[in-house]
């Protein structure tokens, strides 16, 4: 029925099967949308946030998806500016993932603020000293860039591409994509960093506070670095999952290996920097404010030292070692394990930098405050996941996301087109009452 929209030369599920598979995801999406409207209409009392947890699950989700979406800018940076040409086979997917992550981040921010109708004040009445202002500006601008990077892919849909204007537009955009990619890399560098700065500048919170370089706390650089390091891992993870679900190989191994290797070295260097940062913070910064390391990790099981171990060793050192070693990288299972651990590692880092910051008591007579999100928060946090799955599924089905797919999954050539046409006409006939398709039959 939708055969005309599907790229040439690739095999896709029949529409009914596609819809059936996507059904549960759509249900989750609707659940999230309901929660979203509850938050907008009834206000943030729908959440379990409180005056100690002004920043909670959502901000973590925001930071996490932006870190994971870092694959887009870094892959773009490598492809267009460094000249790793092979990455053109995965750049479409990286851009798609980035687009999903950033649109989700913006949506979450729109739900998270107490007065969404005045959200634009952050731009109009900007306080340039606030890290959040920088985040808002660069995030929105970079989302614009991602949209620009995603548009050509949409325009290359088999039918849209027939429109000469769209065809030319996507062609021209491809032509100057390096300029956009460079701008995107510039914007990304700053907003990833600013997100790190959001926590790092809080000099009232010794758990988050870091020493500064010029106006930037160390977390500024660590966040950019970690996004660049872990983002590609996330792209690989999603690629592997997509391949598993579609039961197809979509990108050649050499491309994946290249990206994995780069990601590995980035994680390795990042985690060394992170360890130094943690050590300096634990040995110098925190004690100067009257805290020992253990003050931040005691009195409750939820934020014990295990979380530090999970972040740095399990989510950092281990994936780094796997990914930089040739053997580890080439073992499909280990590769997958490494990218999953990497994703967990960076997510834990963002979790800690948001939620543990809020949980740690600062006034000596204050108490640890723990928080559990409400279902509305969970639903709105899962909403982007469902949305992402749907967008990937739709893009996979209708857009030429995978340049290597036809080569990797050849279809028995001769019979295919006829069969397709026949099937299409049948389906068109079934849909005839709609009227629109009548000319085609004639």
């Amino acid at each position, binding site marked *: 029925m939708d*055969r*005309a929209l599907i790229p*040439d030369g690739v095999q896709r599920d029949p529409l009914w099967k596609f819809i059936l598979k996507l059904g549960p995801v759509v249900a989750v999406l609707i659940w999230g949308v309901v929660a979203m409207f509850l938050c907008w209409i009834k206000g943030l009392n729908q959440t379990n946030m409180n005056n100690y947890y002004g920043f909670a699950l959502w901000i973590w989700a925001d930071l996490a998806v932006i870190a994971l979406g870092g694959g887009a800018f870094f892959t773009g940076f490598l492809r267009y500016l460094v000249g790793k040409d092979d990455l053109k086979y995965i750049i479409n997917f990286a851009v798609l993932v980035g687009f999903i992550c950033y649109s989700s981040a913006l949506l979450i921010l729109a739900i998270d603020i107490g007065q969404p109708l005045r959200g634009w004040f952050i731009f109009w009445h900007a*306080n340039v*000293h606030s890290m959040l202002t920088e985040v808002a500006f660069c995030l929105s601008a970079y989302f614009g860039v991602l949209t620009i990077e995603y548009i050509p892919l949409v325009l290359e849909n*088999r*039918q849209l591409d*027939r*429109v000469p204007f769209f065809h030319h537009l996507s062609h021209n955009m491809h032509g100057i994509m390096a300029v956009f990619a460079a701008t995107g890399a510039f914007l990304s560098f700053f907003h990833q960093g600013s997100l790190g700065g959001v926590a790092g500048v809080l000099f009232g919170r010794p758990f988050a506070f870091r020493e500064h370089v010029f106006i930037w706390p160390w977390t500024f650089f660590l966040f950019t670095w970690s996004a660049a390091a872990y983002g590609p891992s996330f792209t690989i993870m999603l690629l592997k999952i997509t391949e598993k679900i579609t039961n197809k190989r979509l990108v050649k191994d050499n491309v994946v290996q290249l990206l994995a290797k780069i990601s590995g070295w980035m994680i390795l260097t990042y985690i060394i920097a992170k360890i130094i940062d943690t050590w300096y913070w634990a040995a110098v910064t925190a004690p100067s404010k009257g805290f020992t390391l253990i003050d931040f990790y005691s009195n409750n099981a939820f934020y014990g030292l295990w979380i530090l171990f999970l972040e740095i060793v399990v989510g950092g050192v281990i994936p780094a070692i796997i990914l930089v070693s040739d053997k580890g990288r080439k073992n499909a299972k280990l590769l997958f394990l490494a990218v999953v651990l990497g994703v967990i590692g960076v997510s834990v880092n963002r979790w800690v930098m948001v939620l543990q910051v809020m949980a740690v008591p600062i006034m000596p007579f204050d108490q640890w405050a723990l928080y559990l999100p409400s279902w509305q928060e969970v639903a709105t946090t899962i909403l982007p996941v469902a949305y992402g799955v749907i967008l990937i599924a739709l893009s996979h089905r209708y857009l030429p996301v995978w340049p290597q797919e036809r080569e990797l999954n050849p279809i028995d050539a001769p019979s295919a*087109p006829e069969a*397709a*046409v026949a099937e*299409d*006409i049948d389906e068109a006939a079934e849909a005839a009452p709609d009227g*629109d*398709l009548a*000319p*085609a039959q004639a």
Partner: protein
Amino acid sequence: MSTTEEHANEVPAEIADKKETTPETKKESAIGYVILFFFVGLIASLIVGWIIFPRLLYSQKSQPFDFNHAVHLDLVDEGCQSCHYFREDGSFSGVPKLAQCIDCHEEVNGEDPNEEIFVTEYVWKEREVPWLIYSKQPDCVFFSHVAHVSEDSLYDGKDCVTCHGYHGESETLRPYQYNRITNISRDIWGHNIAGFARNSWDRAKMDDCAKCHAEARDAASRRNLKAPTTRFITNIIDVAFPGTRPAGKGSSVQTERGACFECHK
């Protein structure tokens, strides 16, 4: 061409490819329509935005009855302050209460039907007149009248006309216009939809306050500058980079102007 396009979208590509045979002439007239419709849309939306929208956005009410400021101004000794006075605690009394008017209007004195309404409907029934106040700021605004009119205040004595215009000389009360969405008087948010203000009383938004305050501050700091060249250079700096000179700095660390709390509550 449009037909072709439609088909192209709906039939399988292999079939559509064979049908690329639309006459040139048809294509050109189509482009003409496309351009025409662009302008139709443009002009229609401009009309909607500039003419229809403001009419829909603003509504108006009339005052409970008419009031002649000019007549009253002739009868009193101390100008506006005779009725719109300062209380002992420095607060501004605003629109007079019944108790003030009762001194003269206990009974109907003249022929004016408005006075009769006032006396019979309000004075005798001891009801306050629900005047609609043109210059009423929203609840979030703190405005100190005394700071603006007293000689010792930071912004020197202004007279009422500076901000309120010649309301005191009016003989009738114009309709009260207000924004349907915000419920704020149009005198505050601007009679011109584009936000232009010719007189200080055409609009009384935050930016208008800020503009006047910046001028007052700059003027005050310039007074100390003697040499014409220095003054000229300073003028240029003030215009190009307001708020940069220490003398022009306000109390806010964020904006270098007056701190927000000075006017917000």
